[in-house]
C-alpha cells in the first residue's frame, strides 16, 4: 500500500492510501439508500482498494460516536446510535380531561377497591367498556388486585401508588366520604320536593364509602 500521494500519482493502478479509502467508504455508506456490501464498495472504488480493511478503520472511528457502523446482513450501513433514539422523536404532549366514564370507573375503584368489573357496572348502572379499563391500566392508575373468592373468581381492580401520587393522597382511605363531600359543598344535588330523604337517610350508604372494605388492606397493608 502506498503511503503518500506522490507515489500514487506515479502509478495509475496503485490504490489510494487507506485513510483515503476510509473516507470513500464513509461517504458511500452515508449516501447509500440501503446497506452496501464490500463487493459493491470495491466496484465503485478505484482499482486495488480494500474496503474490508477500510471498514475496520471506519468502524473503530465511529465507536462511541453518535453514529455507528452496523452490519446488516452481508452489507454495512450507518445508523444513529441506539441510545440517542430519543432525539429522533419529537413528542407533542397534549393534556386532555379524562372522560366521564373513565373518571367514574376510577372513582368506584378508588372508593370500593378491590372491586370487580361486575361491581363497577352495578354501581355505575351501565356496562364498563374495555377501553375505559385499559386506559386506566395504561395510565397506571389502576392495576389488577386479587381475584375475589366468589363463584367465577373474578379479577378485581385496585388503585396504584401512581394514582395516589397524582391525586396527592396518602392512601385511598383519605378520600372523603359522601357526607364530607356534601358538607364541603361538593355535592350539588338538591333533591326535588318529595324525594328528599330524611336527614340521615343516606348515612348507611355513606358508611360504605367512608370505610373502605376490608380489601383495602390487601393493597396498603403490607
Amino acid at each position, binding site marked *: 500500500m502506498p503511503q503518500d500521494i506522490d507515489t500514487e500519482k506515479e502509478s495509475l493502478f496503485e490504490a489510494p492510501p487507506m485513510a483515503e479509502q476510509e473516507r470513500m467508504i464513509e*461517504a458511500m455508506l*452515508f*449516501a*447509500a*439508500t*440501503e446497506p452496501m456490501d464490500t463487493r459493491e464498495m470495491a466496484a465503485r472504488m478505484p482499482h486495488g482498494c480494500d474496503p474490508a480493511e477500510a471498514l475496520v478503520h471506519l468502524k473503530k472511528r465511529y465507536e462511541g460516536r453518535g453514529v455507528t457502523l452496523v452490519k446488516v446482513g452481508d452489507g454495512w*450501513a*450507518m*445508523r*444513529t446510535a441506539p441510545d440517542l433514539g430519543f432525539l*429522533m*422523536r*419529537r*413528542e*407533542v*404532549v*397534549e*393534556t*386532555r*380531561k*379524562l*372522560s*366521564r366514564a*373513565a*373518571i*367514574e370507573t*376510577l*372513582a*368506584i375503584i*378508588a*372508593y370500593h377497591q378491590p372491586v370487580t368489573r361486575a361491581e363497577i357496572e352495578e*354501581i*355505575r*348502572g351501565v356496562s364498563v367498556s374495555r377501553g375505559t379499563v385499559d*386506559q386506566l391500566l395504561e*395510565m397506571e392508575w389502576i392495576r389488577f388486585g386479587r381475584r375475589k373468592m366468589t363463584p367465577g373468581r373474578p379479577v378485581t381492580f385496585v388503585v396504584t401508588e401512581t394514582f395516589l401520587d397524582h*391525586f*396527592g*393522597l396518602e392512601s385511598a382511605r383519605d*378520600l*372523603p366520604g*359522601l357526607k364530607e*363531600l*356534601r358538607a364541603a359543598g*361538593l*355535592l350539588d*344535588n338538591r*333533591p*326535588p*320536593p*318529595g*324525594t*328528599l*330523604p330524611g336527614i340521615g337517610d*343516606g348515612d348507611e*350508604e355513606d358508611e360504605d*364509602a367512608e370505610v373502605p372494605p376490608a380489601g383495602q388492606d390487601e393493597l396498603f397493608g403490607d
Partner: protein
Amino acid sequence: MAEDTFDDSADPVPVAERLAAEALIVDVDGFEGPLDLLLTLSRTQKVDLRRISVLQLARQYLTFVEQARALRIELAADYLVMAAWLAFLKSRLLLPPDPAEEGPSGEDLAAHLAFQLERLQAMRDCAARLMARDRLGRDFFARGLPEDVTRRREVRYTANLLDLMQAYARLRTRDEFRPFVMDRDAIFTMEQALERLRGVIGEAATWTDIASYLPEGFTTDRQRRRSATASTFAAALELVKEGRAELRQTEIFAPVELRRKD
C-alpha cells in the same frame, strides 16, 4: 429607415457585417429577445463590452432587421421596437446635440445600453459559474437513508381529586336525582288550586281558613301539604285581585282566612 439617411455619410455597412447579420437571421428563434441578439452581435466587435461601439452595434442590429425584412422573415414586435429605438439612438449619436432638445444625450443612452449588455453578460457568466458548482445530489450528497423525526403525539389524560370526588358523589347520589317532572304527584300547581278555589268560593260566605281548602291527599304528607298550601294561597291572592274574594290574617302566623266578596 434612418439607415438610408446616414449610410452614405460616415458608416457604410461592411459586407462582412451584412453577412454576419444574415447568418444570425437563420437563428432568430434562438435569441431570447433583442438584448440577447445585441449581445451576440456585440461579440463580433471582438472588444471588451466596456469598450463596445454602440453606434456600430446599432448599425449591426439595423442591418440584421433589414436582412430579415429582405428575407420576409417576421420579427417579433420587440425586435422592431428595438430597431426603431436604435435608429433614434444612432441619429442622436451622429448629429451634434441640439441645445433646445430635452432629455438624455445620445451618449447617456448609449452608455446605458452598454451597461445593460455588460450586466446581461455578467449574469450569464454567473449563471454558468453557479451551474458549474459542486451540486447536491450530483457532486455531494445528503444522507441516503434519512431517519425521519417521528412526531409522536402523546395524549396525557388528567383528572384532579375534585373530578374524582364529584364523579363518585354523582354516582352515589344518582338515585336522589329525579327529574322534576317525574315528581309532579307531589306538586299541587297554582292552576289546580285556582280551579279548585273558583269552584268552592261561592260557598265561602264567612271567613274560612284557606288550609281547609287543601285538596284531599295533600294534607298529611309534609311535602304535598307545603306545595298545596303555597298554591292555594297564591290562588286566593289571584281571586282577591279579581275582586271575587277577601283575605285576612289576624296576627302573624295566624291562619289565613278567605271569604267570598259579593
